[in-house]
Structure formats: structure tokens, C-alpha cells
């Protein structure tokens, strides 16, 4: 690409307004140039019946006169004083364009393409996160670090570049999949989803040891996870500590297996994203936590009752103690006083009937009692309508 850019610059400098030769070696193949000088520009600006020139700069041809340069112009201009084009197909004969045989430029074009190809396959700009493996005639020879690197061109050396620093994540089960149930050690099922994060440890191993390294990570993860969960009880998979243990076990197991495969992969971490009971039985599990709360509530209520009871008892006992202290100082008088005070309170508020002599039938004022019992009812009955009326 850089070479094309450079060519374009040169064309711009040498735009001497020479008329195009009728026989343009580029023919109508506008796609051979780069995108900027599209053939649409040509037909618009040129407006002539000449062949399309892919190298024509767009927009600068309002007067209908072509200010373009062909590849022949360049070589013509450069010919005498510029450096020799290095023995390619054109040979020493710079009068070539004037010959009717335009096809004679073909070798130069082929040479250019080959040169570009060689440049592209021998220069490798490797990003900081990346590394590249070099195969010399198919055999792995070295690993390229980041930066600009040079190798022999294509058929001799090939380079495969891979991001080695970036941590990749695998979701299991994959987001589209339905829940995958895993059997626990106590033969229960748990709905588990987790993320495995890994990166390339050794690029050569990663490239040359496993045919499908990325799929392998997923499979190894699944095997390790199921083996680890099978060592735990269902309840342990729900607790934080149990989960941490599972994560650790899976990571170690995976690393061991991948190292045995010489996969060149390092497992950075395994995180359990979700560990739930299967949806079919989730209600029963919820009921357990509800039961726990119920039990706690019952205990709390009982504790409240206990505090109240004991405080009450203490108060009562304390009150008795105080009175008893006074009573001991003057037992008889205190006793009498308490008795009369109580009787006053009790009898002062109640209806009393004293039956004087035997044989007298007391009259119980039952209608009066009833009358006294009724008044409250109308009062409440009246209160409601007024409230509604407001």
C-alpha cells in the first residue's frame, strides 16, 4: 500500500498536462489503482471519448484538458536523470512507450506486484499485546515480540500473529443455551453458570499442540467443573466458601489438564456467576428460607415476651419490697390503711346494696341497671353519621 501512495505522490508532481496516449496500458481497469481516483471522476471531468485513466486526479479538469500523468510519463520524465529502474522488464530501453506494443509493460507491473507482495509478507508490525510465530519452510523457528519485525518473504517464512496478553472469557453454558444442571455429590442438581478466563501462555504450543485449542478450553472447563461439583454437597455450592473452593479446584484441575496437553494456555480465573437450584424446585428452596425467617420471628417474639415478663416480675417484686419495708415498721396500721383504701376504691365506684336484716327481700333495681347500660350505644350510633356528614 505504501508503494501505491508513493506512486500517487509522484503522479501529482509530474502532472504536466501531457495528452494521453490513446493506447493506455492500464486500459479500462480502473480498479487497479486505488480508490481515490475512481473512474467516475474521469468520465465526468474528462468528458472526452478517450479511454478511462485510473490515475487521473479528480476535480482538476474543468477545462476539459487532461492534466493527468500516465505511468509512461513518469518513466519518461525520470528516465534520463532519475535512477535506473533496476533491470526490471523494461530493460534499458526507455523509448518503450513510443512503441505501439503497449503490452510490453506487463513485466514491470508483475514485478511491482511481486515487490509489494514481498514487502507485505516480510514486514510485520506486531502490536504490544501480540506475538507472532515464524515458520521457516513450515518449521517453527522463532517467536516474534511486538514491534516491527522482518522475515523472509512469503513462501520461505510465514508469520501468524495472535493476541497473547488479552484475557479471553468463555461463558458456560453459552448464553443461548438453556440451563445445564450439574449433579452434586449428594445426588442433587444445581443450575450453575460460570465464566472461565484464560490467556495464551506459550504461543508456539498454542498453535502447534492442539488442533482446536479454544474448544478444548470449554470442554476441559466443563469436565473440571462437573468433577469439582461432584465432590461437594448441594448446600456447599450455594455458600460463598463452597463456591470459592469450587472455583479454585476447577482452576487447578483445568490448568493441570491443559498443561498435560501442552496447550500453551494459562487459566486466569474461574468465576461462578450463578449457582441456583433448578427452576423446577425453586419454590421448595424459597420455602426453606421463609421457614428460617419464620423461626427467627418466633424466637424474637419469645425473647420480647421474656424481657417483658422478667421486667414485670422485677417491678412487681420491687414494689412489694418497698411496701413490705413500710409494713414491717408498723404492721397493724399499714394493714388497716391498705384495707380501707382498697375498699374505698372498690366500693366507691360500685352500686351497693346492704341487706340489713334477715327476712328482708332486697330489691334489685334491674330496670335501672339496664337503663344505665344502654346510653353508650346511641352515642356511638350518633357519632358515625356526623363523621360521614363532614
Amino acid at each position: 500500500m505504501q508503494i501505491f501512495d508513493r506512486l500517487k505522490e509522484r503522479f501529482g508532481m509530474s502532472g504536466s498536462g501531457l495528452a494521453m496516449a490513446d493506447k493506455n496500458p492500464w486500459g479500462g481497469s480502473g480498479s487497479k489503482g486505488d480508490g481515490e481516483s475512481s473512474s467516475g471522476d474521469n468520465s465526468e471531468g474528462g468528458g472526452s471519448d478517450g479511454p478511462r485513466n485510473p490515475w487521473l486526479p479528480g476535480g482538476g479538469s474543468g477545462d476539459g484538458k487532461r492534466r493527468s500523468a500516465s505511468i509512461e510519463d513518469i518513466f519518461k520524465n525520470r528516465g534520463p536523470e532519475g535512477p535506473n529502474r533496476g533491470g526490471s522488464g523494461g530493460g534499458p530501453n526507455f523509448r518503450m512507450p513510443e512503441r505501439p506494443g503497449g503490452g510490453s509493460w506487463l513485466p514491470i507491473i508483475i514485478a511491482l506486484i511481486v515487490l509489494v507482495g514481498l514487502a507485505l509478507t516480510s514486514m510485520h508490525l506486531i502490536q504490544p499485546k501480540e506475538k507472532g510465530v515464524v515458520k521457516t519452510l513450515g518449521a517453527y523457528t522463532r517467536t516474534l515480540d511486538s514491534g516491527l519485525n522482518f522475515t523472509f518473504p512469503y513462501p520461505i517464512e510465514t508469520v501468524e500473529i495472535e493476541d497473547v496478553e488479552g484475557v479471553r472469557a468463555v461463558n458456560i453454558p453459552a448464553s443461548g443455551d438453556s440451563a445445564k444442571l450439574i449433579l452434586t455429590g449428594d445426588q442433587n442438581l444445581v443450575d450453575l453458570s460460570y465464566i472461565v478466563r484464560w490467556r495464551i501462555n506459550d504461543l508456539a504450543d498454542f498453535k502447534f499442540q492442539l488442533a482446536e485449542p479454544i474448544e478444548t478450553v470449554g470442554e476441559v472447563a466443563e469436565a473440571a467443573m462437573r468433577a469439582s461439583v461432584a465432590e461437594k454437597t448441594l448446600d456447599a455450592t450455594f455458600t460463598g466458601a463452597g463456591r470459592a473452593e469450587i472455583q479454585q479446584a476447577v482452576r487447578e484441575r483445568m490448568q493441570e489438564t491443559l498443561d498435560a496437553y501442552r496447550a500453551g494456555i494459562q487459566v486466569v480465573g474461574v468465576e461462578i456467576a450463578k449457582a441456583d437450584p433448578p427452576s423446577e424446585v425453586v419454590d421448595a428452596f424459597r420455602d426453606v428460607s421463609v421457614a428460617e425467617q419464620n423461626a427467627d420471628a418466633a424466637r424474637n417474639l419469645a425473647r420480647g415476651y421474656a424481657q417483658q415478663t422478667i421486667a414485670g416480675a422485677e417491678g412487681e417484686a420491687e414494689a412489694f419490697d418497698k411496701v413490705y419495708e413500710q409494713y414491717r415498721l408498723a404492721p397493724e396500721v399499714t394493714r388497716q390503711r391498705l384495707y380501707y383504701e382498697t375498699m374505698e376504691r372498690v366500693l366507691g365506684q360500685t352500686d351497693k346494696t346492704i341487706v340489713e336484716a334477715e327476712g328482708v327481700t332486697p330489691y334489685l333495681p334491674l330496670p335501672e341497671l339496664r337503663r344505665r347500660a344502654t346510653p353508650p350505644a346511641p352515642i356511638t350510633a350518633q357519632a358515625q353519621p356526623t363523621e360521614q356528614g363532614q
Partner: protein
Amino acid sequence: MEALWNNYRWAIILVGLLIIGLMMSAYIVNEEEQAVVVRTGEPVRTVNTPNGVTGPGLYFRVPLIESVRKIEKRVLDLEMTDEEVLSNDQQRLLVNAYARFRIVDPQRMIERAGTTEGVRVALEPILNSALRQELGRRTFAAMLTAERGNALANVKVNLDREARQYGAEVIDVQIKRTDLPSGRPLESAFQRMESDREREARTIRAQGTRDARIIRAEADAEAARIFANAFGKDAGFYDFYRAMQSYDETFRKAREGENGRGESSIILSPDNEYLQQFRGRR
């Protein structure tokens, strides 16, 4: 140009032929592949096999007579289909395993299996039956956990023995999944889990009730102790004191009645203790 052609015609033709010949006879074996050279249908030599002496690189063959077949050298994946395995306590388990293998003798592989795909096809039923056989000897619980590694080592040995006949080497066998088959076994597992949880919930509730009762009873006992401690000092006075409180309490409703008057009626005999002074008696 024409002069060049005229002067060096034979040289150019010779170079051209050489290039064409080179292209027909040279071949590159990559790091990740191994190659078998087949001469008229018969494998004659190998390049870059895992245990061979030759490495990857540029090699030559006799054009037209010899052809080159390239075979994956890296570790390949053999995945089995879900297989229902019966444990020796008659429980069903859906098992899914995978094996990792590598072609170590490509010449034999080409003769016996043709392609790596052929090796897979040949090995898969063997893996299935080896696994079924090995796991079928164990109990359901053992299938899940403890002897897993042991069983898999046996499966690996069995499978490897078979794989050698196809020029392959088995590196590892792992159980990827052990699931309960859908339908009855899965449903009964759910039922068991559900009843398990119900039992747990019930136990927790009962424990809560038990704890609550104990807490209340302890409080009651403590209150009784406090009362006994205080009142035991003078049982006679307590009887009187408490009786007074009790009267107050019993007629409280009356005292706090609607119009300040109680609804209770008390019929007193003049002989009543309270009224003993009523007649000025002394």
C-alpha cells in the same frame, strides 16, 4: 528483449522447466502437520511424525508418481454422543465423555482408517462401550465422584490399545458430563429434592417454635423465682397485699366505666368485715 530471447533461448527454457519441475516435486510440511508420501497408492515414507526423525520443512517427491497426503499432527478431539450408562445398582446416568488423541503412525492410519475422520468413526463406538463397561461396574455414587479418575484411567488404557491399531495414540479421556436422563429419573430427583427441602423447612419451623417456647418458659421460671424471692419473706402479708391488689383489679372495669360508675353491684351483709364500724360497734 528479443535479443535476449534469441541469445539465451535455451537457457530460459531450461530455467522455466526447472522451475516447473521444482514446483511439482517440492512440498512444505508445516509444523502442525505430518505427511505421508504415497507412491502409486502405497505409503512409502513419512515426514514429521511425532516419533519420527524428520522434522517439518521443505521436502521433495518424484513428480507424478508420488503424491503427498498431509495429516494433522496436533492433538485431536474425539467427542462421544450422550450415552446412557446403567450403574450396578440399576440407576441410569447420561454420560458424555471426550478423548484426546493424536496420530502417531500416519502410515498405518492411512492403511487402516483412511482419514482422521475414519479414526474417529472407528474409535467412537469403542470409547462408548469401554466407558459403559467401566462405569457399569460401579455404583451410582461412585460414578459421580470417587473412583472417577481410576475408571477413566482404565478407559484410557482400553481405548489406547484399540487406537494403536489405527496409528493413533490416546492422550486423555475425560468425562465431560454426567446427567440424569430426562423423564422419570430426572423427575424423581426433583421430587426428592423438593421433599428434602420441605422436610428441612418443617424442621426449621419446628426448631423455631421449640426455641420460642423454651425462651418463654425460662422467662416464666425466672419471674417465678423473682416473685418467690420477694414474697417469700412474709407469706401472710403477701396474701393480704395481693388480695388487695386483686380486689382492685377485679373491680377495675367498674371503676373505669363509662360514666365513672361501675356496673357491678355488691350486696353487703352488715356483718361484713368492712362494715364492722358501720353501727358504731367497737
